[in-house]
């Protein structure tokens, strides 16, 4: 019981900043990666 309470407490402490869920941060990082790849691809195609 004690351990469960501690784990629940840890989970409650593990709240991401700015967003409600961690998945929003993961999507943000993934979207930034995709954005960069597209941006770099366009640079490559435009200036080569």
């Amino acid at each position, binding site marked *: 019981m004690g351990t469960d309470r501690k784990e629940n407490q840890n989970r409650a402490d*593990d709240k991401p900043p700015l967003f409600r869920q961690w998945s929003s941060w993961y999507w943000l*990082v993934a979207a930034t990666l995709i954005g960069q*790849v597209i941006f770099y691809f366009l640079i490559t195609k435009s200036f080569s």
Partner: protein
Amino acid sequence: MIALDWLVLFGTLIFIVAYGTWKSRGSKNMEAFIKGDQQQKWWMVGLSIMATQASAVTFLSTTGQGMEDGMRFVQFYFGLPLAMIILSVTLLPIYYKLKVYTAYEYLETRFDLKTRTLAAVLFLLLRGLSVGITLFAPSLVLSTILGWNIFFTTVLIGGLVIIYTVSGGNNAVSITQRVQMTIILGGMLLAGGIAFSLLPSQVSFADTIRIAGTLGKLNIVTTDFSWNDRYNIWSGLLASTFLFLSYFGTDQSQVARYINGKSLTEGRMGLLFNGLLKIPMQFFILFIGVLVFVFYLYNEAPLLHNAVLLKEVKQSSAREEIIKLEEKFNEVKAHEKLLAENLAEAIHTNDLNQATRTKTHFFLYKQQEDSLRREAKEIAMEVAPNVGGQDHDYAFLNFVLTHLPHGVIGLLLAVIFSAAMSSMSSELSALASTTMVDIYKRIINLKNPWLSDLAISKMLVVLWAFIAISFAAMANFSENLIQFVNIVGSLFYGTILGLFVVAFYFKKVKADAVFWAAVAAEVCVLACYYFLGDRLAFLYYNIIGCAVVVLLSLVFSLGKKEPAL
């Protein structure tokens, strides 16, 4: 180098060491020494992670790579954000929950002691080799360019790192890395700004981009697939993800950075911070290399970037030969300059035919330039066969010393020293803690009445530093330095990652199966490298190692029943 540069260089280095030692004073026990105070905020964790990965090689070799090979090396980092996300979801919560000292403790919790020890030993082998290279690379370039003895340079860098790492352990590493990373980022921004300002006034930023692009330096994303091509979008997204999963998830030098976070949240944010910033940072460093390339289109370029070596050749019996080569080289560069001006004009007037013709002409001269450089290198190798490293590893530093204003030269040398120190301190700290926690305390476990665990941990830092210094003083490499570090990593990381993947995703696999699968996988990877060599790009060895561990551990588990409880 004038007095101002020496003042900036040594002032910066002394400040870093004094600040780190002072701020982290008072490690009272082994736990605080190895794990740190665990009060780091997310941005501190993030900077520390970045500083650990960014060694001096990153700045010396990557800029040179940008000049020579263009910007396609940035694709190598495409897998990094994906790895950061996967680790934030999977391994990070486990490390925080188990409150581990090292990553390998988890393997004993999940499997058994021998599996933990195997992973720890593989890490010690891999990192023990790499820390030598981390120290050797900047020592080689700095000692050559500054005319110092390489032994003095390695002892200077190693000695400075020992002072604060032994004094404050993991905390000292994190604290100094914050300062080092600030100096590194500030110094590189300044270098980029100055490199651009040194271009002729008629060449605008847009012209620079278009000239560099036309001459093939903005090849950032390459979509052609080939098994032996080291850098393309496919190897970057797939194979690099495996490399970075292993490096950040199972390499103690990185794990120690984020388990020192104040909480799981801070650790996660630190990893994601790295996932957001790493690619732009590498892009910028490569772009500095491209700016230097454009700079040398309009300004006198050296036949060899290793200026000290060139001078030595000119004082040898090969003097006349090298001077003739230099005259030819200068003629070729004069043609290239004219063509670059024509190209800029064609770009301005939007004359595509003229631009294409000029580009074709330029590449003919570029071929001659490359051939003359090769000849010069061959002559230089005959005169000084012991000089290691590739010539373009010297390009950025030679540019800094020749063309940047005094004061900035000292600062940029401090950047390179800082980068060397930041990664080396993490690596030494991780090597010492793994040796202490996973080997000494767990296996040897001597009851030592004279030395406390803290004292032994400190002695292990010194021991590993001594090994690294000895290796660096004796080593000699012809491979591009950053690639050599990555190749060594790829030969071991796949297997270590495989152990963690099985631990996390395949709950039915038991200790014996995964242990022998890992041994077989490592043999398989080394055999593949021996027989295939460069025919398979090194990044794919990460996938092979990991896949063989997973597959064989499943095969070895077939038919085995769980023992009755």
